[in-house]
């Protein structure tokens, strides 16, 4: 089993900030829009280097989304920045009509997703965004796991033609994926091969899944751990191939069980290869204020919860 190590922790939003700056240096058509959260989204470096390509729209997310759609006409590649809640649920109709249905080349970049936003509480802790975005026809949905991967994903979506939702977060997380990695949209990443159970994790839960794999190894369970950084299009081949080998699945995500990664995987397996599945996700509940680590524990989103789910799903094989 591969041991992943890290020397530093960094927030995924900073990976976005670094990626945006580099994407803008590479392509003069990259523009940024932000709804009064430039510091939170780490868009300052981009704004400082390219002030004429940065559009401060104030606290008006609906205007920002439709404006971004309009900016594509004439060849710009707009990256919008706000919190995940305000990038999805607040502006769903704008995203649906002006971006998704109109098939505009807008990159909806969303920070502070999920419980790890922490103390601000449930008003800001969107746990439904992946579901809302994946339901829109043609929308690509990406949820990278660490700083390096978020940076790589930001660069990759600048090259991709079409609407994308890129989700990242606030807390500092272990940086364990390679610097300057190539990010392939829709391609699952094998982290550890195993034979007893498949663990499919996304975003902040990927590190927890790796750690769970080590705990399971000590228990004599050989877990296969896969990073599903792209929720849509889902890498069906990789998932089916793994499941044929292991015969059971646990999914792990910082999102509602309804509409999340687990939901997508269950739909795939039910149609192609019915397999026992357990889901580590928030179970039809809003979050609350608190320290991120304690919230993840309270809502059942830790390595321990993954281990418990693995034990449960293996019994169902």
């Amino acid at each position: 089993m591969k041991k992943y190590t890290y020397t530093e922790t960094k927030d995924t939003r900073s990976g976005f900030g670094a990626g945006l700056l580099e994407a803008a240096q590479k392509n003069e058509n990259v523009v940024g829009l932000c709804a009064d959260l430039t510091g939170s989204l780490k868009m300052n470096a981009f704004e400082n280097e390219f002030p004429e390509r940065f559009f401060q729209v104030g606290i008006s997310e609906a205007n920002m989304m439709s404006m971004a759609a309009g900016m594509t006409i004439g060849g710009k590649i707009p990256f919008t920045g706000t919190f995940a809640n305000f990038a999805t649920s607040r502006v769903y109709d704008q995203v649906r009509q002006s971006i998704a249905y109109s098939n505009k080349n807008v990159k909806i970049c969303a920070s502070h997703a999920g419980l790890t936003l922490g103390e601000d509480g449930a008003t800001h802790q969107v746990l439904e965004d992946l579901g809302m975005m994946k339901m829109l026809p043609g929308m690509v949905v990406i949820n990278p796991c660490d700083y390096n991967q978020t940076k790589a994903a930001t660069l990759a979506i600048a090259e991709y033609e079409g609407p994308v939702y890129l989700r990242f977060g606030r807390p500092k997380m272990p940086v364990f994926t390679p610097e300057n990695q190539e990010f392939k949209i829709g391609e699952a990443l094998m982290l550890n091969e195993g034979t007893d159970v498949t663990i499919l994790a996304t975003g902040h839960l990927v590190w927890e899944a790796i750690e769970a794999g080590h705990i399971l190894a000590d228990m004599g369970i050989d877990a296969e751990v896969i990073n599903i950084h792209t929720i849509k299009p889902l890498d069906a081949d990789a998932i089916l191939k793994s499941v044929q080998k292991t015969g059971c699945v646990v999914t792990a995500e910082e999102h509602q069980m309804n509409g999340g990664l687990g939901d997508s995987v269950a739909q795939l397996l039910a149609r192609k290869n019915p397999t026992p599945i357990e889901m580590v996700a928030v179970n039809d509940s809003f979050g609350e204020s608190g320290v991120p680590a304690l919230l993840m524990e309270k809502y059942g989103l830790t390595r321990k919860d993954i281990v418990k789910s693995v034990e449960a799903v293996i019994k169902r094989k």
Partner: protein
Amino acid sequence: MANIQKLEQTVSQVRRDIVRMVHANNSGHPGGSLGCTEFLVALYFEVMKHDPSFDMDGKEEDLFFLSNGHISPVFYSVLAHSGYFDVAELATFRKIDSRLQGHPTTHEGLPGVRMASGSLGQGMSVAVGAAETKKLNGDDRIVYSLHGDGELQEGQIWEAAMYASAKKVDNLICTVDLNGQQIDGSTDEVMNMGSLEAKFTAFGFDVLVEKEGNNMSKVVAALEEAKSRTGKGKPVCILLHTEMGNGVDYMMGSHKWHGVAPNDEELANALAQNEETLGDY
């Protein structure tokens, strides 16, 4: 100098198309379409520089965004007669497998449409975005948008208006179709918006009021005046008083024809009032 008589002939044909399209599938929005016919004909046949061979990016062209997408019949007819697609395609309006959806969309690839609209309130933001891109590209052409007056009840319009003036988006001409009607009644009854001139002025627009929005020479003059006011640090707004259903006497001035199709007899009556000038599709 505009050939007003020629433009009015086009208006007559577009009005015939509108009532025929709506009648043919017993659905659509004739009232607002008829009221905005002079405006759209003036824009596409006189005022805008545009290329019917159609490129989505529209560089070095003037752009138009229809924010109140339900008046698609007038938009489609004007696009067809401008050469964006064959007028015969108007017969497919609102039918299955058509590019002429109930509300305009880019999804089916209809030339001339650059953004889906229908869910109200989004078009001013779209136009502002396109105008900002023109500025970045060093493209000095103008972006036009059209909005219903009832549509101004959507909050996003005012978000876009606030942005446009704060950021000096002065290559933008937003026109409001002031027909005073919406689905449930007059705009004054449903949601009295007070003085729209005062509101747009307070929001930082350079506002023109044209009281005769169904008088072709007045509409052309208003658009030319609006054009002359671009590039001066402020977005421009035309408050265009129109009559819902204009050109068909029994539809005029009533919200009842917002989204209702004429029957066979009513169609014949409407057609008798509008001469066939360019040939029916």
